[in-house]
């Protein structure tokens, strides 16, 4: 038993740089496989809607664009998205990928609705 056993450690840190960063001015990078926001490539999509079926947050919609052509658009409700990347795993054609964007906040939730064509 020794009084002030923690003191040497504390004094050592007086001369060290802080462990945090000034966030909006200085940013720590994200790792390679970070799960950011889903990004959709329309040319690869075949409209099987497996992603819509497996999305736990019901954040995705796949809509056919034209009657004649097999072309699809995706509506992403980013206010509901939980960034689990299940849609990426469910897609057999690699039409969905995750980007590294993490600053997704907005003042209006309607602005978070994104349409990919």
């Amino acid at each position: 038993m020794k009084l002030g056993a923690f003191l040497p450690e504390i004094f050592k840190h007086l001369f060290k740089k802080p462990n945090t960063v000034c966030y909006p001015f200085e940013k720590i990078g994200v790792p390679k496989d970070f799960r950011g926001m889903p990004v959709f490539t329309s040319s690869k999509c075949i409209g099987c809607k497996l992603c819509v079926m497996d999305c736990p947050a019901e954040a995705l919609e796949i809509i056919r664009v034209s009657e004649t052509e097999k072309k699809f658009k995706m509506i992403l409700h980013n206010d509901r998205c939980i960034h689990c990347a299940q849609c990426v795993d469910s897609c057999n054609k690699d039409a969905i990928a995750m980007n590294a964007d993490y600053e997704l906040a907005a003042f209006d939730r309607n602005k978070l609705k994104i349409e990919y064509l």
Partner: protein
Amino acid sequence: MEIKIPIGPQHPALKEPISLRVTVDGEHIKDVDIRLGYNHRGLEKLAEQKNWVQNIYVMERICGICSHSHTTCYVQAVEQIQGLEVPKRGLYIRTLVAELERVHSHLLWLGVAGHETGFDTFFMYTWRDREIVMDILEIISGNRVHYAINSIGGVRRDISEEQKKLILGSLDTLIKRTEYYANIGTIEPTFVARLDGVGPLSKEQATSLCAVGPVLRASGVANDVRKDDPYAVYDELPFEVATATSGDVLGRVIVRVKELLESYKMIEYLLKNIPEGPISVRAPRKIKPGEAISRYEAPRGEDLHYVKSNGGDKPERLKVRAPTLANYPATVVMLKNMFIADIPIIFAAIDPCVCCAERTVQLIDTKRGDKVMRFSELRKMSIDFYKKMDLSKKGNLWKL
């Protein structure tokens, strides 16, 4: 004179909504009544409306800190029903994330213990070092909190050689820091004096009240699901069950620090002995009819999931017994004859996760004539009630 004081549901000492009605005589606690149900989210009912894959993410959100525990427990039960054989490499990665999660949970708890005892420097330092393990988890899974590494039949992401090297490198720092904290925890007199003898729970009490996890092990019972009923690859791992004999809060600190050191050993073993091969097998969209119970040693204690399938693409029933729920009866005993000032630390010592443990129980008073009714029955009853009523008479409509 005995006075009843309410602590919670909103109280600065408790981080989550739970109500303790404490009967005190002066400063001494005579009796405690725990009231739950302030944070019920209806997750079990929600799980019945989502398919098997979606449910992994629902289960993950039961708890923010033991998110991997709940998914693994659920996924194990589903694999048991379907009879899926998970590849060895998948199980190794699952166990690796489980142990990393235990490290981050225990470091978090150590910080909370420091904070509740007024040792805020300790809190700051442990939480700073917790960032190392959070970063490791982010590298492996792509997220700091909800790792989403499990899938039915294996794991979703493989681990590369580079990542292995990186984790082993950061592990050295973590081991050094934890050994330093273990040292501080035993020689810093203010910290030891604050925790020694607080919240006693004897071996007999712990077993008879069905306490789980570090609370049970601190009372001298070497009970660990990882050893008693090994799942994943725990039967291959060299580790010892950490126990303490004192049965007080200091014992619970020691158990958790010992477990941290055991976890580091396990992580090192897992990384060095991970076999090559596939990481998962394909699971069907519909699971065979059947039922299963899965046990898992979460950082807080034994987690239990019951899953019942009727052959469809959704579970028929999913029951979750979170470890905190099993520790509530023991908390009441621990709090008795202690001081009011000890409530935060004793309650924090079980590492409570209140909203994980919120499950509904319907109590029906048959003497009073209560009964359970479906909404359709209630509607029919109200229609009949108004049909019988003579609305032409004045004052008949609103009888008050």
